[in-house]
């Protein structure tokens, strides 16, 4: 009689490392983390402290991604994680957040007291927004949104609260670790918010083929379709993205001037890596006159 071997028991930290380490599917791409590290160090942050923040944020982001995947019933992308009981999968998401919170506490205690407190406040503010955004995403029936303006406004707010808040924390936190300069911290938080919103739009438009399985989820294409009596024509999606990217790129550039040149260059490079070159398309000004968006 053959005996089926019991699956190996994996230590708590090893279990977390499986899906949160830099090469894991649910970890933020290394190129993002490298840019965040460079940003903090360029502005005068101690390398070890900036690295600690980047690690905390990366774990927080992994926890959020896992939670989002579980709640949307998406593929987890890791064979070991996918075979675990659902209760344990949810527990691992919470555990990654607990570890991130521990990273943050250790980091904050190594910073000047006021800076540490402000970093805590930025963290709690943005994490709360992420929680509210996810709650609204899960609880807001698409059919209840009424007219098109409501649908697009609601979607825009969700993008700000979800990925927008996550990136406001990423960039703002790196700068907060490095400096007490409120103007620079504000600029980094604001740039991060726009960058995160762009990522939400971009991923949502790219993923629209797989969204049929989630008919109740508010997506950009669905919100836009509510504005068009004829529904969304696939050929019009590129124009929507190009205009969004053009406007947001212009907004990013306007906010970035508050940061030193070297920091601006790091963020511009990150934007280009994430979304490609900025489009050069005519965009109507507020007066209705066509103006050109300059490439980066």
């Amino acid at each position, binding site marked *: 009689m053959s005996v089926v071997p019991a699956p190996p028991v994996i230590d708590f930290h090893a279990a977390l490392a499986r899906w949160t380490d830099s090469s894991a599917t649910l970890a933020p*791409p290394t190129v993002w983390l490298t840019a965040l590290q460079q940003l903090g160090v360029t502005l005068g942050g101690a390398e070890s402290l900036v690295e600690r923040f980047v690690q905390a944020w990366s774990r927080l*982001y992994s926890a959020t*991604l896992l939670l*989002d995947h579980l709640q949307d019933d998406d593929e987890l992308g890791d064979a070991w994680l996918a075979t675990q009981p659902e209760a344990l999968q949810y527990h691992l998401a919470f555990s990654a957040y607990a570890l991130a919170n521990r990273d943050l506490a250790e980091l904050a205690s190594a910073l000047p007291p006021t800076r540490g407190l402000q970093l805590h*406040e930025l963290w*709690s*503010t*943005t994490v*709360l*927004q*992420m929680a509210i955004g996810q709650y609204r995403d899960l609880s807001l029936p698409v059919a209840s949104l009424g007219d*098109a*303006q409501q649908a*697009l*406004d609601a*979607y*825009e707010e969700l993008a*700000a609260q*979800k*990925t927008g808040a*996550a990136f*406001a924390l990423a960039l703002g936190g790196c700068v907060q670790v490095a400096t007490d300069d409120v103007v620079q911290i*504000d600029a980094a938080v*604001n740039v991060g*918010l*726009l960058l*995160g919103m762009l*990522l*939400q739009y*971009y*991923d*949502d438009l*790219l*993923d629209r083929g797989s969204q049929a399985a989630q008919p109740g989820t508010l997506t950009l294409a669905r*919100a836009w379709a509510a*504005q*068009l009596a004829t529904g969304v024509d696939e*050929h*019009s999606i*590129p*124009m*929507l*993205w*190009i*205009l*969004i990217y053009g*406007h*947001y790129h212009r*907004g990013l550039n*306007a*906010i970035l001037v508050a940061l030193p040149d070297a920091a601006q260059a790091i963020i511009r490079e990150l934007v*280009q890596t*994430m*979304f*490609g*070159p900025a*489009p050069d*398309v005519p*965009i*109507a000004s507020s007066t209705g006159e066509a103006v050109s968006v300059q490439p980066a």
Partner: protein
Amino acid sequence: MDGSPQQDAGTLKEVAIAETVVATPTEHSWTRVQAQVSRAVPRLRAIATQAILLGPIIGASTDFWGGGGSGRGC
């Protein structure tokens, strides 16, 4: 203060509002961030309207997904 029920109710409401403001400072600072950013970019619905107007005139290339497509938004 005359101790009337109406005045007591008004006082209690003021106290409740003050406690709410103190208890939720993070909400207020997030509102400030959103207000700053909203001045930098148009509303999404305004951009969507432009896309409807400009789409048929300009068209768009098919290679517009310039980035890597992270699939890691949340």
